[in-house]
Structures are given as structure tokens and as C-alpha cells.
């Protein structure tokens, strides 16, 4: 397998350009009669980034920032309202169902909730083997063997014990392993991991994350890792993008962004992460107010109402995401220039 980052040409496997996802707000009967305009929840509003083959690209931010929506679109579970998404050169939005199904062998997803992402009425073996069945890749004994092999790889040993159990007989951590098994059995190239460990106890998160990194090495996977936990993000990412209210406010190599955050929101986010050290002196960046609704987005820079450094221009002109240092971009008037 090629050594990838920093060593010569890296190939881009996912290229997202100006991605938009607007959800129309439901209008009541009278509103439909009397108003012309519709309002939209601008969950993802002009987001662009690219993911290199073999890396872990993290999309981080608080709830409502649009990271999960972005992930769902990339996993082809939702259609974008605008923009282009290229996977290995192929445009994935608007594909016909057959092409879409073929692509599903290459792009997979792991969900956040280990209690909801497994069909309660399907045994583990059935659930993990189902992708093989759907794509006609294996049946009968061959399928069973592949399932056993994968269960072993994700640490559910002995696999024979787990293959016939139902989800409710497993713990949260075990269920998440099953979800991971299901996602890799087709040997995909790209996996969207949507907060895969957020609902697990802090003490077992490490195990699952290490597992995912092992699998990355073994299967040559690329991850889009979605999380709100920046401590975990720091542990596993190669590159990271911080999202706020549907936009990317900062992106860059992990080391760069964590050691030298440029955007005030990133600074606030990083300073709020709990640090397991009682003697550390905390310097928090205080933010005013709460995250506004994505229907009534503030004018200019979306972050300006809460920003401790906001000045006049911030409420008028929306800052663009531009490269400030090498491989480190931020969207902020304060930083630019």
C-alpha cells in the first residue's frame, strides 16, 4: 500500500464543491395560502473540501452545524440541493439506481446510535451478511465464512458465538462493532463515520477508534469522521474542518489547526473541551448567546453575533474560506490580510 500523506502526490478520492442542502420549512395551511416565499433551513450552505485517499478527514462542530447532513449526502442517503460531489472522479449526486447500487459497494457508513442502527429482528450474522446477499457476492457457506471472518476482525470473538445472537443481547460497544463489520464486509474504499463513538462510554471509545484505525491500515480505507468531540478528533484525524451553522469556518492539517487555531469559533471550541487535568488553568473564550436557527442565518459572518472580536465588517460581508498559511484556511475578516 502506498504511503500517502506528505510523500509525493496524493490522490483525492472525494471532492466536494459548493455543496448545499436546504430543507424547506413546513408551512401551515394558512401560511401556504397567504405567503409566497418559503423559508428554508440552510443545513449545509456552500461547503467545499476534498478528502485524500487513505486519510482520516474530520468534520467537527456542534449539533446543527450541518456535519451529519454532509455525511449523509456523501453516503448517498440524501440528495443535495446544489453543488457537486465527485467520488473518484464520478459525480455521485443524481445517479441512476443501478449505478448508485454499484457505488454503495465502495462507499459505506457507520451510524452514531448502536441501539438504533441494527434491525432488532435480524440476527447479527444475517445483518452483517446481508450486504453480500444484496450484491450477489456470496451465498450459503461462503457467505457464512465471510461473516465469521469479518466478525473476528472487528474483535467479536469467538465469532461463532456472536453470529446467531440478536442485537439486544449485545452491549453498546459490541453493537457498534457489528455496525462496523457490516460496513466493511463489502470491502469499501470510503467510510463515513457519523459520531461512531459518541454514544458509548468514554472508556470504550478508545477501543473502537483503535479498531477503526487498524481496519484503515488493513483495508486501505479512507474515513470521513464526523464528531463534536474535539479530543477524539485530535487523536485520530489527519486533516480537520470545523463547521458552524452550515459553513466551514476553518480547515487544515490537524497539527496546524489544533496548535494554532485561527477562527474565533475554533478557539472557543477548543478551549471548552474538558481536559482531564485538575491542575490545568483554564483559559476559556467566552461566547455570547446560543447557536442561532439555521432558518434565520445572521447576515455577513454567521458567527458575528457571538464573536468576542466582531467589528463592523463582520455583520455586512460574509468572509470567504481562504488559505492563511500552508494547508490552513479560515473564513474570518480578522485573520485575513
Amino acid at each position, binding site marked *: 500500500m502506498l504511503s500517502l500523506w506528505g510523500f509525493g502526490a496524493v490522490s483525492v478520492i472525494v471532492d466536494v464543491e459548493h455543496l448545499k442542502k436546504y430543507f424547506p420549512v413546513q408551512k401551515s395551511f394558512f401560511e401556504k395560502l397567504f405567503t409566497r416565499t418559503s423559508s428554508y433551513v440552510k443545513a449545509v450552505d456552500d461547503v467545499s473540501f476534498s478528502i485524500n485517499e487513505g486519510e482520516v478527514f474530520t468534520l467537527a462542530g456542534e449539533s446543527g452545524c450541518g456535519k451529519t447532513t454532509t455525511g449523509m449526502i456523501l*453516503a*448517498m*442517503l440524501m440528495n443535495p440541493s446544489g453543488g457537486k460531489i465527485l467520488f473518484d472522479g464520478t459525480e455521485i449526486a443524481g445517479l441512476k439506481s443501478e449505478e448508485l*447500487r454499484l457505488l*454503495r*459497494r465502495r462507499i*459505506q*457508513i457507520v*451510524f*452514531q*446510535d448502536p441501539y*438504533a*442502527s*441494527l*434491525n*432488532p*429482528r*435480524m440476527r447479527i450474522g444475517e445483518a452483517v451478511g*446481508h*450486504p453480500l446477499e*444484496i*450484491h450477489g457476492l456470496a451465498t450459503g457457506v461462503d457467505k457464512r465464512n465471510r461473516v465469521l471472518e469479518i466478525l473476528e476482525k472487528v474483535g467479536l470473538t469467538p465469532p461463532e458465538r456472536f453470529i446467531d445472537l440478536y442485537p*439486544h443481547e449485545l452491549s453498546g460497544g459490541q453493537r457498534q462493532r457489528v*455496525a462496523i463489520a*457490516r460496513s466493511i464486509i*463489502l470491502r469499501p474504499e470510503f467510510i463515513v463515520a457519523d459520531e461512531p463513538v459518541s454514544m458509548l462510554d468514554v472508556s470504550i471509545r478508545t477501543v473502537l477508534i483503535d479498531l477503526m484505525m487498524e481496519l484503515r491500515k488493513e483495508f486501505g480505507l479512507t474515513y470521513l469522521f464526523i464528531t463534536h468531540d474535539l479530543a477524539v478528533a485530535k487523536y485520530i484525524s489527519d486533516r480537520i474542518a470545523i463547521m458552524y451553522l452550515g459553513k466551514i469556518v476553518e480547515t487544515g492539517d490537524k497539527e496546524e489547526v489544533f496548535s494554532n487555531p485561527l477562527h474565533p469559533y475554533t478557539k472557543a471550541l477548543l478551549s471548552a473541551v474538558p481536559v482531564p487535568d485538575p491542575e490545568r488553568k483554564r483559559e476559556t473564550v467566552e461566547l455570547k448567546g446560543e447557536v442561532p436557527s439555521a432558518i434565520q442565518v445572521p447576515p455577513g459572518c454567521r458567527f458575528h453575533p457571538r464573536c468576542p472580536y466582531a467589528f463592523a465588517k463582520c455583520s455586512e460581508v460574509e468572509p470567504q474560506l481562504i488559505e492563511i498559511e500552508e494547508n490552513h484556511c479560515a473564513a474570518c475578516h480578522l485573520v485575513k490580510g
Partner: protein
Amino acid sequence: MVILGSGIVLSIVVMTLIAPWISPYNPSALNVGPIRSPPSPQFPLGTNHLGQDMLSRVLCGGSIMLQVSVLSVLLCLAIGVPIGLISSYVGGAVDKIFSLITDSIYAFPGLVLAITIAAMLGRGAVNMAISIAVVYIPSYFRIVRSHVLTIKELQYTVAARAIGAKWYTILFRYILPNVVPSILSVVTVNFADATLTAAGLTFVGLGVTKDIPDWGWDLTDGRVLLPSGAWWVITFPGIMIILLALGFTLMGEGLSELLNPRLEQ
């Protein structure tokens, strides 16, 4: 509760099945004994105004009711469940149309609607089953629909899409198995209600023809005979109807209790 309920139902079924062999007399045979005679050693449940033995009539009279119940439930399952599944999964205009149709049917009081349809279709067990099925299909549709709408959004259904499953796979392997417990409850209530409705239809003369022994007929006749003091004609068949309905109801209640705690887990 389930055990008690199914016990009752099962005994009645068995009784009806072996009835032809154990009835002392042919239930339709006229004048096997003196008319309107009260319970006696020879006729333990008495005789009616046609001289028919009530014991034999009680033993054999459940047959039609059971057949009609079973048939109507089968019809409901065969029609109501698939329509519910597909309509709510597909959504949009299709769903709106089916919901409108079923809601309109649902708005009518059950017995009235059954009577109306039976009147249009004519007599006979099959027609009875059809009219009861029509009344009940909306209930199945609604239960199935409400569950599908919820399950459709759950992560494991989305996960099924993510691995490339086609819509019918998702519907029948991911959604249906999780809807089945709730359908079961409706089925047992359906059985209970069908029993009562069948009795009702026969009572108003829209059920089977008079020559077939049926508890509903005994109710009709018994009602007329009651003022003259022949209480046994209406009472025993009446008790049987209630028992059967009760048995189904207990089964249904017990089943929901059994299934729900597991779901909550």
C-alpha cells in the same frame, strides 16, 4: 392471560370440529323432541320452537362463525397489510389516496357498514367474511401505516438503504418483522369482533341461510321465544358467543402484554 384465552378458543374450535360426531341429534332435524321443552336429561339444553335439539345446535353452531372469522382475518391480512406497507413506505399522493379511502371506511360504525355490505352482497359465509373484512381493513392499514412511518426513519432502515437494499427488501425484511407484533394484537381483536359481527349479521338475517345451524339464528329465534319463557334457546348460544369473543380478547390482551415489555427492553 394468553393461555386462558387460547385455551377457551381452542376448546371451542375442537368442540366445533368434532361436533358432527358427538352431537346426539342432527342439529337441523326438525321435531326430534317436543317443541319448546326446557332442559331435561334427554335434551340437556332443551329444544327450540322447531323441536330442534339445542345441545346439538350449540355444538355445531360455532362452525360458521369460526369460518367467517378466519376468512375475514385472512382477507384483511392479505389486503390490509400489503396496502398499508406499500402506501406508507411510498408516501406522497398514493399514501394520501389510500389514507382517504380507509379513513372514510373507518368513519362508519362497524356493524352498520357490515350490514350494508352484506345486504348488497347477499347471504352466505363468504359474503359475511367479505363484509367484515372490508370493515376491518382500515384498522390494519392504520396500525401498519403508523408503525411503518416511524420505522422508516429509524437508523436501521436507513442503514439498509446504505448497504444497497432494494425497496421491497427493506419493506419485507426490515420493516415488516418489526410491525408484526402490533399486527398480531389487531388480529386477535379482529377475531373477537368478527365473531360478534357474524352473530349480528345472522341475527338480522343477513348471514347464512336458515338451514345451517348457527348461534346467530338461535339468538334471533331465542329473542322471539324469550317472552314465552323459553330462556334456554337464547341463553346457551349467547354464552358460547360471549365465550368465544372473550377467548379471543384475552388472547389479544395477553399477547400485547407479552410482546410489549420485550419491545420496551
